[in-house]
């Protein structure tokens, strides 16, 4: 059910943008107002979510570890999998963010002659990397719409991305990889019964949304072309906080833009917040120094303690009188 619901939600979004422009001509609404509102929602929502997480205490010291902890100097320990210092944590975090290191451990569980067996399964890791990196490259390339003059670096990335020199405008690899990777991630969710069972609309919707963004972008670049000069007039005016939406761009652009605005608004309230959340994961950002430093649960109530020393001070004479041995005479 989640699949159809999510799919039709994205179709509905496309239709809203289509009729909003093609039938109602609401260029300012879809070109200026909604993008600004979406961007502000994204930024403020992101900040508030991270601050909310930051206010949550971490009751236990819970670094998940996959290697030997630091103990005696003559035992080699696993500096990246089980770091005991801040620098080790930074190293683990960099590998996690740029290489998806913990996803590399992904396993496939199966039954083998009645026995449970585990096998390596790198496809999720590979598709995840392809998806995120191509997304990043597409985003960086899109800066050509927002920056005037276009920095030479952006032009270089564009020509490297189009190095196959297929067609005009040249085919950009990252856009195609993004769409294919998103479709693979969807295929993975549906083809594996266990994964499908635990998948929710919140898993399908972002995939369809991003696939829809990539597809509308690809259509707009190669098939149903838009007036790029007017697009850039709009995007530069957005960046300069002037906001004027020229007419005659082509409806497909507003579909692309409206799906992106939806993504921005949806982002802070969804699992996509793993972008910020990865840095706040206790299992990733805590060094395993639980034998070196005492971790105190921040929500422990204030306990009034009466140490034995104080107890003896209070009752020393009575204890002596009753013949109970005391530590201090």
């Amino acid at each position, binding site marked *: 059910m989640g699949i159809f619901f999510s799919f039709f939600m994205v179709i509905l979004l496309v239709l809203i943008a289509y009729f909003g422009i093609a039938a109602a001509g609401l260029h300012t609404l879809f070109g200026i107002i909604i993008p600004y509102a979406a961007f502000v929602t*994204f*930024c403020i929502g*992101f*900040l508030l979510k*991270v*601050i909310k997480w*930051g*206010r*949550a*205490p*971490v009751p236990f010291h819970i670094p998940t570890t996959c290697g030997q902890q630091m103990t005696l100097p003559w035992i080699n320990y696993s500096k990246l999998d089980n770091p005991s210092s801040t620098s080790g944590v930074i190293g683990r975090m960099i590998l996690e963010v740029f290489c998806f290191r913990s996803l590399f451990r992904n396993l496939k569980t199966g039954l083998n002659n009645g026995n449970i067996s585990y096998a390596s399964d790198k496809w999720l890791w590979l598709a995840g990397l392809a998806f995120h990196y191509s997304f990043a490259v597409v985003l960086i390339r899109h*800066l*050509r*719409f*927002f*920056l*005037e*003059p*276009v920095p030479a670096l*952006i*032009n270089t990335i*564009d*020509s490297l991305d189009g190095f196959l*020199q297929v*067609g*005009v*405008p*040249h085919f950009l690899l990252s856009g195609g990889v993004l769409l294919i990777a998103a479709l693979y991630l969807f295929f993975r969710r549906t083809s594996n019964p266990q994964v499908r069972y635990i998948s929710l609309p919140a898993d399908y919707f972002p995939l369809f949304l991003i696939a829809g963004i990539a597809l509308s972008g690809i259509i707009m670049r190669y098939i149903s*072309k*838009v*007036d*790029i*000069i007017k697009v*850039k*007039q709009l995007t*530069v005016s957005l*960046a*300069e*906080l002037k906001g004027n939406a020229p007419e005659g761009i082509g409806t497909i652009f507003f579909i692309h833009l409206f799906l992106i605005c939806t993504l921005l608004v949806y982002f802070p309230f969804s699992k996509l917040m793993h972008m*910020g959340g990865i*840095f*706040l994961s206790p299992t990733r950002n805590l060094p395993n120094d639980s034998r070196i430093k005492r971790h105190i649960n*921040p929500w422990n109530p204030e306990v009034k303690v009466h140490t034995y020393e104080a107890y003896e001070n209070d009752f020393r004479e009575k204890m002596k009188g009753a013949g109970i041995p005391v530590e201090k005479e």
Partner: protein
Amino acid sequence: MYNGSKIIIGLIIFLAIATFPFYSNIGKSAGVPMPDTNTPVINGLDKKECVASAEYMKKEHMKVLDEWRDEVVREGKRDVINVGGRVFEKSLQNGCMQCHSNKSRFCDECHSYAGVKPYCWDCHHFKEGRI
């Protein structure tokens, strides 16, 4: 907030990246491109007509050139294009640029604005004023 200083530094980095397009344009002029059709050949024409309408050419000129390339180079169809009695060769340099002889003020005007670097020019080396 726990570890507040670290989290706030992270959030400032996030905001600096997210709002990059807003502050990076400050102080730079964002002129709208004005492709210039003021060349001797175009000025000498009675009827200023290209191989297709301006509206079509704006979006599809690259496709037209791509198709011409395939027809001429791969299929050997060197027949000319006739628009209202005027004859155009299916060629960038011997066709289009006979009229549009001002690459920097016509082609480049939009291409650099939109960050488009067609690789046509890698081989078709064009020096302004030589045609």
